[in-house]
């Protein structure tokens, strides 16, 4: 291998007209790691994901995937990685098994191994009982599992997951987390874009937080939390007037704070905050809001 990383992105810029969707992004996915690309809608996550399959060509910067330089050698890189798109693009009039068969061909699984690859993918996605079902008869969670299984048919070393659990019920989301976690323990390198903070916090070794096309923070979730939000947050409830007052106090004292609907969270005070309120453990969401200035939906 020419590099030690599954993905290396350096100074990636992509403009659409006068808008820079990605504006000088650096990103690193070491082999065997699960890296989260976290950011609000419009931060440039999808553009970045598409650049890794050469469906977006950079205006500036260098991208290397599995040691192949993109876009020139992207076909070889695509042959060795799996992609799970955000938009469900399964063939809905085909069965589960037929969908996998088609992609076994597209991913060039050798003829003698096709059967086994499909069985393996069905088992992994827990869809063996539904092999003969048409895709339009599957639940949303099953479809997403099938999408993941489809991306794993050729046993890729790297998996790109673009918002893998968007729009799913909490219960189904947890099922998928278990599946992703299993892949991670099997040593598959994973890059996952998400705007669910909890997902990144649970699954990712490191996260890159994106805002307006740039990485604003990089590191393991716990380290980022500690660095930006401290250990403890104080959540103060009260009337709008009271909350405004609390915010002013925090500003004066140099504590970062965020408004969360009916409360103000004071961050970074690490228990030194004498204000009355609920004390809670800080989380990645606090970091995200502090750094991107955007609330989570």
């Amino acid at each position: 291998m020419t590099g030690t990383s599954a993905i290396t992105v350096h100074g990636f810029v992509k403009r659409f007209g006068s808008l820079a969707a990605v504006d000088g992004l650096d990103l690193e996915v070491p082999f065997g790691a699960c890296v989260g690309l976290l950011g609000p809608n419009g931060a440039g996550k999808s553009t970045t994901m598409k650049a890794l399959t050469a469906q977006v060509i950079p205006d500036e910067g260098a991208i290397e995937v599995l040691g192949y330089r993109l876009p020139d050698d992207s076909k070889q890189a695509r042959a060795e990685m799996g992609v799970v798109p955000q938009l469900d693009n399964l063939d809905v009039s085909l069965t589960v098994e037929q969908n996998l068969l088609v992609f076994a061909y597209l991913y060039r699984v050798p003829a003698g191994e096709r059967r086994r690859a499909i069985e393996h993918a069905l088992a992994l996605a827990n869809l063996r009982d539904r092999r003969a079902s048409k895709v339009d008869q599957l639940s949303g969670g099953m479809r997403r599992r099938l999408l993941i299984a489809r991306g794993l048919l050729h046993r890729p070393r790297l998996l790109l997951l673009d918002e893998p659990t968007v729009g799913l019920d909490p219960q189904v989301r947890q099922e998928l987390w278990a599946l992703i976690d299993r892949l991670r323990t099997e040593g598959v390198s994973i890059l996952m874009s998400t705007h669910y903070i909890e997902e990144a916090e649970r699954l990712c070794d490191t996260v890159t937080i994106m805002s307006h096309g740039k990485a604003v923070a990089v590191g393991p979730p716990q380290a980022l939390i500690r660095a930006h939000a401290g250990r403890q947050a104080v959540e103060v409830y009260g009337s709008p007037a009271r909350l405004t007052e609390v915010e002013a106090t925090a500003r004066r004292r140099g504590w970062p704070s965020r408004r969360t609907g009916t409360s103000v969270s004071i961050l970074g005070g690490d228990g030194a905050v004498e204000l009355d309120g609920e004390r809670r453990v800080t989380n990645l969401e606090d970091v995200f809001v502090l750094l991107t200035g955007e609330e989570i939906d």
Partner: protein
Amino acid sequence: MATSRRRLGRLERAALQGVMVREVVNFSSFWRSSTFSSTVDPTIYLLAFGLGFGSLVTRVAGHTYIEFVGTGIVATTVLFSGAFTAMYSTFIKYKFQHTYDAIIAAPVDTEELVTGEALWVAVRTGVYGCVPMLVAVAFGLAPSWGMLLVPLIAALAGFGWAAFGIFVAARVSKIESFSYWQSGLLTPMFLVAGTFFPLTALPHWAQVVGNFNPLFHCVQLVRHAVFGTEGIADLGHLAFLIGFALAFWRLAIRYMERKLIL
């Protein structure tokens, strides 16, 4: 690492096969309706014109009217099951189903995607194109050895129309815009092709325009294959169809790339 560092080439067999396998597997779920519309439409034209109009006209260009229409209609079938199929299915696949996003995320380039799609449509038109001709045989068109060339001619023209359809689908931003191409271009071409009446029945300018119509060249090649070839003239017709197919193949790739690769 066991994988070779070889850079993958262009127009690889494995990629074309992958694209076509997808089509074949999908086709297995809708072949009835597709076969119905692709063969019944032209057969109705054939019978309506052949039997209806044929009772008024005895001979056209040295042939009975059923012979004349039964061979000409092959080109119409190729147009219907080639261009229309490619236009609609391409548009649906890239715009609504996002199928193409999934395919080009695999080791398949746009060039291979477009080529594989057009080849598959060519196979279908090669088969469908013969159906109304066989119906005409049942109504008095004499079988001939030259008919064995008809699937090949239909497939070649079908490849060109498929590429044309993919090109159109890559040019429009909404499906309603197909109307301009259909009514403005395909319908006049369909009529000025020498299918239902010889081009020589038209004013001179229309005959000149007709010479730029791929349908006309397809009609001529099919008739000559069935009734007897005409040497150099047929090479000209063949060359036109090949040129048509090559030109739109490259155009389809170029414009589809603009849609798929940002």
